[in-house]
């Protein structure tokens, strides 16, 4: 993680130096993740999510001189986004905690229950599956670098290691190594979220991935 933080600080310096290509690269990586971050906390209000993310970017640019690389740049952006959301809720007289997301609470036992439950059309089941979907989304978004994309290419698009290597501009061995690190990062992130659940930890431990 220390290396990633160092890289992010260098990225911030390039952006501050007027490197618009570096900014576009960062924007393309962060925008979809921040948009989902905001959308999940706004009951799916797409217009407000767009405005919140816009304000987040503007605030972040203004304060970028103050970014020292103590945390990953995306984590720093998320904190700014939280502040913009808090302002938004406060000005509308709404409590910040009205939308409680699984990734925002330490006890994720509910994830296990949702996963273990048989597929059902009951409304309650649908709500839980939405929550799980949101949890996986948030976990993929929180992974460093392009690990989230790599996992989607592999498990949703069914791409081979060779195809992923080509997209990343890497050799097959390096791509395989990146895929392995992405799987491990995802496993650790989910386990951290679900640390209250011994059962899930056990499941993850038994699973070959």
């Amino acid at each position, binding site marked *: 993680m220390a290396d990633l933080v160092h890289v992010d600080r260098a990225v911030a310096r390039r*952006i*501050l130096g*007027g490197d*618009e290509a570096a*900014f*576009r690269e960062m*924007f393309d990586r962060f*925008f*979809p993740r921040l*948009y*989902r971050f905001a*959308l999940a906390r706004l009951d799916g209000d*797409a217009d*407000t*999510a*767009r*405005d*919140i*993310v*816009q*304000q987040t*970017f*503007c*605030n972040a*640019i*203004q304060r*970028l001189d103050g970014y020292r690389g103590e945390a990953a740049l995306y984590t720093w952006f998320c904190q700014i986004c939280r502040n*913009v959301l808090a*302002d*938004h809720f406060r*000005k509308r007289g709404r409590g910040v905690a009205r939308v409680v997301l699984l990734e925002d609470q330490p006890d994720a036992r509910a994830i296990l229950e949702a*996963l273990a439950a048989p597929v059902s059309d009951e409304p309650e089941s649908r709500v839980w*599956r939405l929550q*799980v*979907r949101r*949890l*996986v*989304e948030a976990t*993929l*978004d929180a992974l460093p670098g392009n690990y*989230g994309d790599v*996992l*989607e290419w*592999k*498990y*949703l698009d069914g791409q081979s290691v060779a195809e992923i290597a080509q997209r990343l501009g890497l050799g097959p061995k390096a791509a395989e190594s990146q895929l392995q690190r992405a*799987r491990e990062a*995802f*496993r650790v992130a*989910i386990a951290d979220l679900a640390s209250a659940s011994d059962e899930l930890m056990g*499941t*993850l431990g038994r*699973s*070959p*991935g």
Partner: protein
Amino acid sequence: MVAALIQAAGRRTEPPADAYRQVLDAAMTALREKSRRRRERSWLIGAAAAGIAAVSVMLLLQRGEVSLQPRMATVVRTIGAVELRSGERWKPLVESGGAIPAGTSLRTLAGGGAALSLGDGTSLRLAATTEVQFDGPRHILLRDGMLYLDNRASLGTGFRIGTPLGTVHDIGTQFEVRVADGMLRLRVREGHVEIDRAGERLTGGAGEQLEIDVLGGVTRSMIGTTDPAWRWAETMAPAPDIDGRPATELLAWVARETGRRLRYQSPDVEQRAATVILHGNIRHLAPLAALDAMLATTDLEYVLEGDTMEIRARTE
């Protein structure tokens, strides 16, 4: 397990393309503006390092002995810690009376405050933890904090107060602007004030408060001209020199500074006030305290009734 979870969740939600475009445009604009400001600062540093002659000029500038820029303001009064910056570094403002050239920034620290004269009798006051930049004639940039402007100039010679959330225009009035926590707040005590924000124009009249948030939401409410919220600006009011001046001048100043209409009990009382000549000074006294101190030596007294200050003949 990893594969099963990701496949069960499905593909992540993609933001709409128009949202991507809009946010990118706004972010690029903000980035270019920041880059421009950083280049200007770098240029200033380079210019300052260009030679001994330039350094000498800068030293003279800092002492206030020489100014290459037109004077934008004069510091009349300070409370607590106040700093100014004409290059890259902030330096303590050690005494009042200094001229502020164009391009200079001024900031008050916690517990501090400052009052400045902008010419034409216009008074600018800065609350604690406020930062402004004097960009040019009648143009002030409020970066953070709260200011109060009392512009007595005639119609059409107002000031522009730039803020991150919009530009405030006044037309001969008294008003307060505050920028904090991603919100622009305007309080109008007298006259009218306009706000330009992203092509939208809002007007606030006397007794109105407008709060504009980062998303463009506007909340209007009322605030009286004698509301205690104006007290900080009254405390910072630079006192006029009243030695040898008629009491009517002091009364008019106190009425304006406290947001009240001045009324005399009778024409005789008004005539009496015009003939009372004051002696002494009221430096560092708030308006009502100054009035108490000066009227104690006369046969006049005042009564506050709502937004009116009535001057009466002393009865005791």
